């Protein structure tokens, strides 16, 4: 079937072609720029630490380790078991500290508080501290990204 009138003029067609081509050209310039300014993720899937460094920790005390570019906090419980957290506040990312005498984690940036299990209990933090999964294999302390298990939200 042949249309009586064309749906757009030759001029419109050419302008569209030219515009589309310019757009595609621009996109092909922008793509590498955008790719370049965002570096790849550096959060590790797991870190392996020497258990010997952590075996002598006192109950109710913490020790830091390196979780990629973030501080990780390993905490020894009263019963001798361990918990691992990502030591950054869930509010706006400041590094938290553990106050052993009060059995709380504290964020100095906006007075955020977490209990000894990392649950957010006061101030602006909206979520509990991120937990990591620990396993001990021989002399290695292996810390992995958490699976589904998370401390219940308040």
């Amino acid at each position, binding site marked *: 079937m042949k249309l009586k009138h064309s749906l757009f003029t030759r001029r419109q067609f050419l302008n569209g072609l030219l515009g589309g081509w310019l757009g595609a050209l621009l996109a092909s310039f922008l793509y590498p720029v955008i790719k370049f*300014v*965002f*570096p790849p*993720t*550096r*959060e590790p899937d797991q870190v392996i630490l020497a258990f010997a460094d952590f075996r002598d920790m006192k109950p109710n005390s913490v020790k*830091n380790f*390196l979780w*990629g*570019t*973030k*501080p990780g906090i390993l905490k020894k419980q009263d019963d001798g078991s361990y918990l691992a957290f990502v*030591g950054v*506040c869930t*509010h*706006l*990312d*400041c*590094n*938290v*500290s553990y106050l052993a005498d009060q059995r709380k984690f504290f*964020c*100095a*940036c*906006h*007075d955020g508080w977490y209990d000894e299990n990392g649950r*957010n209990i006061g*101030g*602006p*933090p*909206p979520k509990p501290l991120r937990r990591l999964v620990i396993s001990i294999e021989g002399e290695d302390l292996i810390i992995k990204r958490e699976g589904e298990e998370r401390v219940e939200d*308040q």
Partner: protein
Amino acid sequence: MKTGIQSWLDERLGFSNILGFLKEKTVPQHKHSIWYYTGSAILLFFTIQVITGFMLVFYYNPTLDGANESVARIMTEIPLGWIIRSVHSWAASFMIAFVFIHLLSTWLSKSYRNPRELTWMSGVFLLAVSLGFGFTGYLLPWDDLSLSATKVGTDIPSSIPLVGVWVTKLLRGGEDVTGDTLTRFFGFHVSILPVFIFILLGVHIYLIQKLGMSLPLAAEGKKEKVREIPFWPNFVFREMVVWLLLLGILFSLAIFFPPSLDKAADLMAAAPEGIKPEWYFLFLFQTLKIFPAKILFLNGDTLAVFLMLLAGILFFFLPIMDNKPTERKGRIITIIALVVIAYAVVMTIWSLL
């Protein structure tokens, strides 16, 4: 009398037009003309920033291991280095302070109304760029305070759904604040923001020349003649008096109260107590602090960020919303301005308690 060189250059550059314009230019004189001096005060401090910035960059080292040390070296070893850094730091505060005053005077006198809407909007961009300079510069000494302030500041956009995390990544050069962030902030501070500020300043000043200075509401509508003085030399000489005064205050403060420098930031250490951003961010800092973790079903900080964004947008479009004829008083706008000022002052004081 033109010399040969002058007319040779003039034929090619045509600067006599510009000089002619400046000779003709007049500045209105009335009881509110003191606000006209705030613009040139900003330019004065900006010039000082450019010059002292050039000097500091000779010795500053924007790397994780070198930054804090190189600032310490500027403060202790380099001849008169401490004064240069102190002036840079104080002039930054002065510049921001005058930007605020300049803006509030425009707001309260409704000078942004037709035809000066674009002057206002370019001014809002200039404010944003100035704050960007302040924010990026705060990190460069790389001590504990500046690190925590940057962590918080760059994490704020990530509360915005979808795009937010990418903005944070873009600012930080990764998921976390690291040495890459320092290098990136240095890049923003000394190359990207300067390009923007020069372009915006050019537009802003051009618009002021093209559209003329605004008059106080009372005088603007009426046809009666307002007293005027020539820009050159009368007004410029008066400005120079103001500059000298400001320079005196600036140098005195810089010499007697140089900025401190803590030990180098430790990326893994807990945030120190009493962290604070620069004074001009304190009201935002306090706002974030008092927002609770959850409001209804929303995260408190997400809501806070949305409110800030909304305030920024309303602020930018102020001349579009308030497009009344110039002689109308605009009481509501004045009241809003006063409320905003009161809010900022109260929050700032609260954050210092």
